[in-house]
């Protein structure tokens, strides 16, 4: 399967009477977009703000971040099974608004939402401070239960990303990258001497604000299965917003999965990247056992030499991670796991909830308990009082002057376990 990613570099976003992309500037007609979003009767209001790198701007509480994309050639559409009809994606040509993102905020749904600072010390920890963000402030109608509330905002974000993506359908890309995955047989014939590597992508699937959808399927209801890496790039996996903000994989992360990217970078030269195994992190122990058994079976069936395993979240998912690692190593396949740590504010505590000697190659995204001070910002998009209740915040996190003292947990994407960032710990 072969996919070309056409990148259109976006260097600015502006509101304008006509939505379009011109000279690498994204113009948005908010009236038109608003009308489209308000077709959802559960959405009471939606407002738009633009947040650019370097601004003294804070977005809180952040629910999801999404990169606008559009299918130019090949089957299916972006976010298949969710916005587009169910049809296999991952081949042909996709255009991407590189450097732009849609960020959703609005009244808090649950503890797991986060903060994006566009400048200052907090900005160093989130990749989204480097993007031109169109921020949606979504407020739902009264009386909506949490599950429904989450869904309404999730869809508003996805629809906006698709709307913006469509503006790039006819554009000539600034840069084109090509990704190709041969079949198992072709790959073996083509690269007989290279180690064969698969990627085990663990997806949160624990209920409200902990869900992930694959082609529209709630991952908690799925068995471990496989995807072509390029399917991710077309939005086969979307985030239902999960866990602490620091180690949730936003939809943006899934679209730009760094393990996929870095395995492709060495594909055909140092390794043979066979494919992506996706598995869940459920709340029932039997599910954990079954899913990790399945992961190990698929790894064995593919006959690969090594796997990279990435986690999402922390706590009980540490067990899913360790089960996957242990069972795959027991098949004689080498593993490297990517996780993050909860080592206490002083860094002296036990980092993971579970452990096993077979997990002898670990990459860490850093200690999420580290305390950080975020200075006051001139502009707050969203609801600043959320700072006291989101995971990583505490009573009094929000100071009178608008500064926030909280754990790194509060920053969206800070200790990402796909290895999206350079942050680590020793």
């Amino acid at each position: 399967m072969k996919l070309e990613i056409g990148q259109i570099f976006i260097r600015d976003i502006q509101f304008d009477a006509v939505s379009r992309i011109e000279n690498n500037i994204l113009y948005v007609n908010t009236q038109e977009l608003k009308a489209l979003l308000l077709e959802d009767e559960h959405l009471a209001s939606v407002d738009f703000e633009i947040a650019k790198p370097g601004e003294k701007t804070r977005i809180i509480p952040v629910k999801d971040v999404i990169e606008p994309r559009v299918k130019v050639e090949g089957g299916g559409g972006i976010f298949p099974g969710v916005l587009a009809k169910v049809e296999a994606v991952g081949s042909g040509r996709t255009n991407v608004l590189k450097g732009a993102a849609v960020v959703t905020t609005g009244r808090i749904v649950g503890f797991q939402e986060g903060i994006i600072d566009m400048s200052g010390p907090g900005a160093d920890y989130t990749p989204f401070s480097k993007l031109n963000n169109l921020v949606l402030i979504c407020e739902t109608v009264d009386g909506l239960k949490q599950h429904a509330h989450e869904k309404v905002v999730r869809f508003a974000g996805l629809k906006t990303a698709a709307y913006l993506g469509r503006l790039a359908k006819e554009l000539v890309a600034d840069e084109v990258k090509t990704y190709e995955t041969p079949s198992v047989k072709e790959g073996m014939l083509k690269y007989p001497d290279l180690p064969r590597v698969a990627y085990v992508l663990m997806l949160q699937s624990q209920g409200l604000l902990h869900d992930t959808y694959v082609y529209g399927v709630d991952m908690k209801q799925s068995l471990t299965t496989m995807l072509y890496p390029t399917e991710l790039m077309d939005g086969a996996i979307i985030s239902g917003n999960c866990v602490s903000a620091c180690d949730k994989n936003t939809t943006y992360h899934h679209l730009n999965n760094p393990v996929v990217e870095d395995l492709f970078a060495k594909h055909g030269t140092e390794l043979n990247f066979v494919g992506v195994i996706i598995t869940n992190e459920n709340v029932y122990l039997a599910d954990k056992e079954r899913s990790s058994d399945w992961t190990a079976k698929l790894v064995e069936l593919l006959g690969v030499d090594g796997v990279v395993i990435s986690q999402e979240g922390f706590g009980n998912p540490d067990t899913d991670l360790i089960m996957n690692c242990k069972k795959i190593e027991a098949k004689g396949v080498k593993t490297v796991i990517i996780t993050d740590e909860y080592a206490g504010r002083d860094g002296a505590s036990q980092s993971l909830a579970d452990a096993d000697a077979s997990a002898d190659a670990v990459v860490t995204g850093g200690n999420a308990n580290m305390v950080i001070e975020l200075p006051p910002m001139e502009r707050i998009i969203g609801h600043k009082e959320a700072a006291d209740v989101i995971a990583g915040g505490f009573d009094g996190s929000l100071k009178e002057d608008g500064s926030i003292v909280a754990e790194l947990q509060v920053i969206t994407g800070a200790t990402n376990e796909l290895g999206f960032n350079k942050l680590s710990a020793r």
Partner: protein
Amino acid sequence: MVKEIERAGLPVVHICTVVPISLTVGANRIVPAVAIPHPLGNPSLTPAEEKEIRSKLVDKALIALSTEVTDQTVFEMS
């Protein structure tokens, strides 16, 4: 948690869903629970059925507390 209370001299039974974590952190008497968001319940059942499950889990926990163990022991539901 469970270990420190045990260290204080009290027998502890740990009712939890993720038994491997309980084993890793060193609980000695473990009763496997239903699911993480509802260890002693199951919202898909009727309230009466749910209560019955909860009673059975508590019964098992009381049995665990009344049973001498020398090592980490998981008291599976029959």
